């Protein structure tokens, strides 16, 4: 059970504050913010504060969403997963209702947020986090903020800033907003979002590869119809044997998708999953992950990135990064960012297309000691490719 919940802006201002049990002193928001801002570990500064810490017997939990800090406090030894999951869920419910989650939208709609918070938690115990159920308790109407004025969320933001959100054309409509024409549009959005982690050796050989994916749904359907989501027919879960690496070859080429493991939203029923790979669900209102999955089966990475660093004397070096697009020429990737940390001198960003080479000459103001190659990198790359995913997982019909 939690004692307080609050949302702080990046500068530490209180945007929303709710005390459920009165067990934690009032100054907790300042204590929390000071601690997070000046977190020190082993005497080292600029370390990042962990999501959970204890100050004078009070446990502080926080998650960062859309640049805001969602915080809960308690004096009791609770399940950290439960509280962090709850904070993330509260952020999502608020987003469902406001359409856009930002400091501005929260400030404009704080009374509605208080309505939500009153129903989500009572005396520290979670009552419901279902956007659907909450609808009947919410009487304030959301005040829309101009979505166009929001800073664009880079695709990287999906994974780097907390929960996975729909990229690009993110739906920014409140679940209780009325259409101008007075009638509601029946819509449902289904996205497959994948995070690909591949390590290449210097010779281009794949060392490790993993896909973490999620099927996201955002429903604006009325009347709660039952929906069936059919996935690839040749879809296997669990890799049979124990070795998660090393038996790539066994399944490659056959067209089958083998997931290491997956989990499902609680609305999903798997009655016919074993038969025809179909998920049955009555989608609740709002945004939620239908299924999360993880795959280490061999797949073709969409890009190959090669980096070459040539040292030319003590004060000069040349960096060459080649990005090769390995997918069909009929699709295009966009919002590409390639990053490569370089030893203390500079960080460069470039945007590339389907095949690109970056050549950068570096000059140093101080003599290097021959470790540039070791200290540079790894090269990391983020990008969005609409209508393409690496795992081959498909939603055939829904």
């Amino acid at each position, binding site marked *: 059970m939690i004692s307080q919940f609050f949302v702080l802006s990046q500068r530490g201002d*209180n*945007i929303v504050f709710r005390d459920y049990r009165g067990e934690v002193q009032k100054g907790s928001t300042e204590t929390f913010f000071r601690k997070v801002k000046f977190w020190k570990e082993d005497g080292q500064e600029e370390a990042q504060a962990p999501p959970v810490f204890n100050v004078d017997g009070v446990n502080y939990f926080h998650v960062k969403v859309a640049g805001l800090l969602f915080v809960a406090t308690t004096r009791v030894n609770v399940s950290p997963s439960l509280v962090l999951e709850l904070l*993330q869920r509260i952020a999502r419910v608020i987003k469902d209702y406001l359409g856009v989650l930002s400091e501005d939208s929260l400030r404009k709609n704080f*009374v509605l947020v208080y309505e939500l918070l009153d129903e989500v938690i009572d005396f520290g115990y979670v009552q419901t986090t279902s956007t659907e159920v909450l609808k009947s308790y919410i*009487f304030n109407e959301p005040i829309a903020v101009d979505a166009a004025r929001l800073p664009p969320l880079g695709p990287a933001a999906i994974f780097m800033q907390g929960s996975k959100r729909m990229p690009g054309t993110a739906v920014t409509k409140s679940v209780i907003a009325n259409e101008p024409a007075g009638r509601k549009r029946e819509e449902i959005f289904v996205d497959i979002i994948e995070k690909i982690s591949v390590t290449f050796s210097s010779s281009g050989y794949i060392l490790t590869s993993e896909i973490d994916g999620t099927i996201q749904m955002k429903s604006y359907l009325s009347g709660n119809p039952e929906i069936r989501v059919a996935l690839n027919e040749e879809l296997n879960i669990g890799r049979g044997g124990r070795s998660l690496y090393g038996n790539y070859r066994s399944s490659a080429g056959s067209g089958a998708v083998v997931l290491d493991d997956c*989990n499902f939203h609680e609305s999903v029923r798997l009655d016919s999953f074993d038969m025809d790979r179909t998920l049955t669900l009555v989608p609740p209102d709002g945004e939620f992950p239908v299924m999360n999955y993880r795959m280490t089966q061999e797949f073709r990475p969409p890009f190959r990135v090669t980096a070459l660093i040539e040292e030319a004397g003590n004060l000069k070096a040349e960096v060459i990064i080649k990005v090769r697009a390995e997918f069909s020429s009929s699709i295009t990737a966009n919002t590409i960012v390639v990053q490569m940390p370089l030893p203390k001198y500079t960080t460069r960003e470039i945007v590339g297309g389907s095949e690109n080479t970056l050549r950068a000459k570096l000059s140093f103001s101080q003599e290097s000691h021959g470790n540039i190659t070791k200290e540079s990198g790894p090269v990391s790359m983020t990008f969005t490719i609409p209508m393409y995913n690496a795992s081959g997982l498909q939603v055939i019909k829904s």
Partner: protein
Amino acid sequence: MAPPGQAQRSPSPSQPSGKGEVSDLKAQLRQLAGSRAPGVDDSKRDLFKKVISYMTVGIDVSSVFGEMVMCSATSDIVLKKMCYLYVGNYAKGNPDLALLTINFLQRDCKDEDPMIRGLALRSLCSLRVANLVEYLVGPLGSGLRDGNSYVRTVAVIGILKLYHISAVTCIDADFPAMLKRLMLNDPDTQVIANCLAALQEIWTLEASNSEEASREREALLSKPLIYYFLNRIKEFSEWAQSLVLELVAKYVPSDNNEIFDIMNLLEDRLQHANGAVVLATIKVFLQLTLSMNDVHQQVYERIKAPLLTLVSSGSPEQSYAVLSHLHLLVMRAPILFSSDYKHFYCQYNEPFYVKKLKLEMLTAVANESNTYEIVTELCEYAANVDIPMARESIRAVGKIALQQYDVNAIVDRLLQFLEMEKDYVTAETLVLVKDLLRKYPQWSQDCIAVVGNISSKNVQEPKAKAALIWMLGEYSQDMHDAPYILESLIENWEDEHSSEVRLHLLTAVMKCFFKRPPETQKALGDALAAGLADFHQDVHDRALFYYRLLQYNVTVAERVVNPPKQAVSVFADTQSSEIKDRIFDEFNSLSVVYQKPSYMFTDKEHRGPFEFSDELGNLSIGADAADTVVPAHQVDANDKDLLLSTSETEKEDGRALSSNGSAYSAPLYDAPASVPASQIQSDLVNLTSGLSGHVPAASLAIDDLLGLGLSVTPAPAPSPPSLSLNPKAVLDPGTFQQKWRQLPISLTQ
């Protein structure tokens, strides 16, 4: 409209400073209070919003309490809600004014709209004013009997609130018993879950002064109740499921079939997208199988995939919570995770707190077959631009070197670090090389050759400097320049701020003196003189001790300073196995994240429901004092055997109970299920007369609960009624057990 951002901090002319605005608000509210003009509700809404926004940023708006209450006579539900929020916030500090609100809240509790009834009841119970509790009892009682489930969920939590304001009032009104009846009969699972939460809190707090409460608390763990919850588990919300599973983890089944049945029923919970549900299920699995070595080990295998999936989905914060638990399991049974090491590789953009856990796991799972790859990966991190990460990685390489038999290659890598000529890399490496030499003196030649090339001027960090000085003293016969380096360090005694370094300097120069007296004599004299004049007590005392020792007898002094040394075989673990077991018992709690048992970071009154650690703490301390050998042995055996041996089942049973299972020890376990069962039966019967009108599904619940019809008479049953889990599970018991016996195990021993 937007709340003023930093009203308190920056009283600039454009920002409201508070005072003036509040009195303005007061006047405006007063004007509107009696008005019935059209559109007045809209103006009220705007004013109320202002009040709430001031309240949020911390401006004291308690002075408008009266006006707010006057304005609350409205049918506008948005206004009502804002008013409730306001009143809840300020009632405690203004008990007299709070009395003003009682009237309209009580009236709202009887509104025909269940929403208003619920909201009013919640606000009424949130006033937290002790002398108003008499006004709560009536509305709470009718709230529990309300036909609408929303009102009932609010009433149940309201009773818990009442308990915290005035425990006596709550107990005297017999509310706990009513909650218990509701828990067993309500058709709404959220009502049931709230009853469980409330009763756990109330009975845990009451248990210290009432035997009945402590019996009731134990009865929550009785078979009929546990089965009642388990059979409906999927009807509960994910949050309530976590609550129920936490309870089930404390249940002690009577035999292995029961254990398998429960696991069978819960296995699909491992596929839930909510990490809290999965971790709570894992806790049940781990606790249930403590007495069955082989199955317990299979549980580790079974939960790997779901845990890894949770780690890689969701936000970094959620991953961290799950990863902390994976970390605990890896540390407990590294051998079971040795082939999964690639999952613990760090990703560039992960936060440091995640990387740190992963490094520790990589260190733990390193064995003969994967060390090469792990160390190669770690060496990449050591060159990282991120300095804390580089340091941690070097430490990890060192730890692996200390736990391996074949350290050849690792020592080479460590020595290569020294060639990178980065101060922080050198510093970390020196500390490691020192520890390595204490364990593997045979490597001294190679190490000394490299260490000898390091200029002591490039080593500034105290720990590293101390390590270098230790090596200079210990291997002075092999290091040509040792006496002279020490001499130059002693010359700069005044500039050396770390007492640790000065202490090491004294000892090193002593050691060096016995090996190379003519070259060191002057340095020793200088060091002792400087040490005797040192302001630091320890340094002064050590210098004096050496001085007197040398005066007394040089041979004795040599024996003291340079005794023949045995290589260190195992470095002491920083955490005792007993503490580790306590943390394991508190799986799925903050103890795992902090890596400390709860008594180290929670106040006594906040240990939470079912936290038996007070009793446990006393118990184990007592045992420690009386007999230090036995517990140590138990715990040790528990740590290793439980996961590795597969044959000692008989011995295991008793032991597992005495160490890990001690949190819910014998009396509770042995108490037959018949007592609580018959109690429930009679309760059920009482209830059918009192509540059945409002709760038509009650009879269903009874069927569900006992597998018996309503016709059962409350005559004391000679044996406990047979209970069964509904056959909702995926597999029939036979197949399920077969499957568990066949799970592949990576263990090769």
